[in-house]
């Protein structure tokens, strides 16, 4: 197990390195650069100065080397858009996104997996209805789901229509501040969790259907084990393999932040930061966000593999060997 973890750690570091480097090069490759943010007809001197400030006057390789040497000392460059260090920006945004991701993941799991068990093992109106709702959430673009939720929030005033804190948060005590954040959480969390729950439901249902047809389940039914127990204890556990794999992906994706949801609900997270950085060609912020995304994905993969091992003893043995 220790060897396995060391190997994974090595690969995670390599992944972060490769992705951030690739992001840096791709930023240079795409037409235009961050000076477009100065406006369509900024003065040549200002453009020149900005290019120098972000090392854009060097070749891509030279810039990359410079950036790497600084990154080794944990200096990830600064952002043009926010005019502050990338490291600090990403730390703040990642914390916000992580809060959101945990809530959304728990919500999607509690909703999607049980519903998938039902639709995967039963027929009838309820099953069909759940499946229909799932398909609806999969057919609507995330942008529209988020906007519709903001629309509902603004009409009903059940939740604040966006943001992470109220405008007067500056005057709140920290416990009141926490309550304030908690009030702002449901909207973006739902926007993230609903399509994800639908994905979980679909995968779980398929996997469940297949497992139920396997001989060991049929055998259990034949032995007279009550049907519902069979489903939960035998079939479900055996059906978890693909879910685990996707689960890791979902963790990685959620932690990297969904730009659409964060953008529309004005949640100050990593996804929105990345999106704004991409749009502005804010080169070091792009590289930093990509690195953070890679790190989260690596963590997600690791969790997925561990879940997989826990769910399926055969894999555990294979990994140990």
């Amino acid at each position, binding site marked *: 197990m220790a060897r396995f973890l060391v*190997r994974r750690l090595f*690969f995670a570091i*390599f*992944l972060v390195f*490769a*992705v951030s480097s*690739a*992001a840096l090069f*791709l930023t240079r*490759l*795409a*037409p235009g650069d961050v000076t477009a943010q100065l406006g369509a007809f900024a003065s040549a001197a200002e453009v020149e100065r900005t290019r120098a400030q972000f090392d854009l006057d060097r070749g891509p390789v030279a810039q990359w080397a410079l950036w790497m040497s600084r990154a080794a000392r944990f200096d990830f460059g600064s952002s043009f858009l926010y005019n502050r260090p990338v490291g600090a920006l990403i730390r703040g945004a990642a914390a916000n996104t992580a809060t959101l991701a945990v809530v959304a993941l728990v919500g999607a799991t509690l909703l999607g997996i049980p519903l998938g068990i039902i639709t*995967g*093992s*039963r*027929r009838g109106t309820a099953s069909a209805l759940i499946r229909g709702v799932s*398909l*609806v959430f*999969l*057919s*609507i*673009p995330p*942008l*529209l789901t988020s*906007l*519709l939720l*903001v*629309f509902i929030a603004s009409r009903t005033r059940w939740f604040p229509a966006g943001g992470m804190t109220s405008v007067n948060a500056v005057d709140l005590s920290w416990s009141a501040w926490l309550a304030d954040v908690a009030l702002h959480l449901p909207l973006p969390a739902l926007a993230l969790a609903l399509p994800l729950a639908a994905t979980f439901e*679909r*995968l779980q249902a*398929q996997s469940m*259907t*297949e497992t*139920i*047809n396997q001989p060991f389940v*049929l055998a259990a039914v034949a032995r007279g084990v009550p049907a*519902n127990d*069979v489903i939960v204890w035998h079939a479900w556990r055996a059906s978890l*393999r*693909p879910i*685990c*794999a*996707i689960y*890791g*992906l979902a963790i*990685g994706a959620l932690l*990297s932040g969904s730009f659409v949801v964060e953008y529309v609900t004005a949640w100050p997270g990593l996804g929105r930061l990345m999106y704004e950085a*991409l749009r502005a060609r804010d080169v070091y912020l*792009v590289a930093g966000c*990509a690195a953070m995304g*890679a790190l989260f*994905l*690596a963590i997600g993969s690791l969790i*997925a593999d561990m879940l*997989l091992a826990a769910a*399926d003893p*055969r*894999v555990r*043995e*294979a990994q140990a060997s």
Partner: protein
Amino acid sequence: MRKAGLTLLGLVIFLAIAAPVLAPNSPDKVFSDLLYAPPTDLHVGYIHPVRLVSRLERRFEEDEAVRVPMELFTRGRFLSVDDTQGPLLILGADAFGRDIFARLLYGARTSLALAVLSTIGALLIGAIVGGIAGYAGGLVDELLSRFSDFILVLPAIYVALALRAVMPLVLPASTVFAVLTGIFALMGWPIVARGVRAIIASEREREYAMAGVALGAGPARLLLLHLMPAARGYLVVQATLLLPAFILAEATLSYVGLGFPDSVPTWGTMLQEASNVALVGDAPWMLAPAAAIFLLVLAVNLTVQGVGRAPVQLEP
């Protein structure tokens, strides 16, 4: 159920193929007085023409004094009205005053073909890479898995932008189609590969696979004939997830300039244009493409439901 799915799927494909006959108007035709016009009220055999009252306030009224007959199989179309009398807009008009119904039918052609081809591409690559990773295990598995992680977190938008920059300014629809299919397949496979890898890795340890090895089956044969079938159900569900995702992703890439010319409607771009909630509240018909995507996904879902075997009936 499966029959219903096949029927629905057949219907969608038929609608796409028969678009030139079924659409009452050309998808490019602009009714400049009818921007955001609501669906025309259909009466038995006739419609009332719609007139603009206020453009900014999007108010229209029906001219109830006039009856324009709807005719079957005239003007080369299944159902149409005389153009000079006022158009038949079954699903209303979009921001340019174009027939949403016609664009929906024509859009089905591009969007369906694009999504299906991209999905097949992504599934193929994903199954191969995931299969090899899961079967080989060890370092090969690690390398392939990390490579797929790498693809997953790469800022795909920049890939598209960089690609766009080296292509000519005006792209014919066929080029756009090929490029998009390529990008989708190359960006979509890692998700597939992950699940397949997990399934194969665990199948490989099972008795029948062990027996296969003992009997001298080659790795390719074992993988393809004995292990891959276990991933079939998973692949099918992934297909139903990727299909709508690709239809929608087309709109994102059109934002960076890799889009079809406006004479080629697609569901993704139509929905993108409808993503204005203030508008959707007043003009819900603009969401028609979402309904179309839903129908398609439903059809595919119903069709593939029984892949593997039919679920055991546990409760009466």
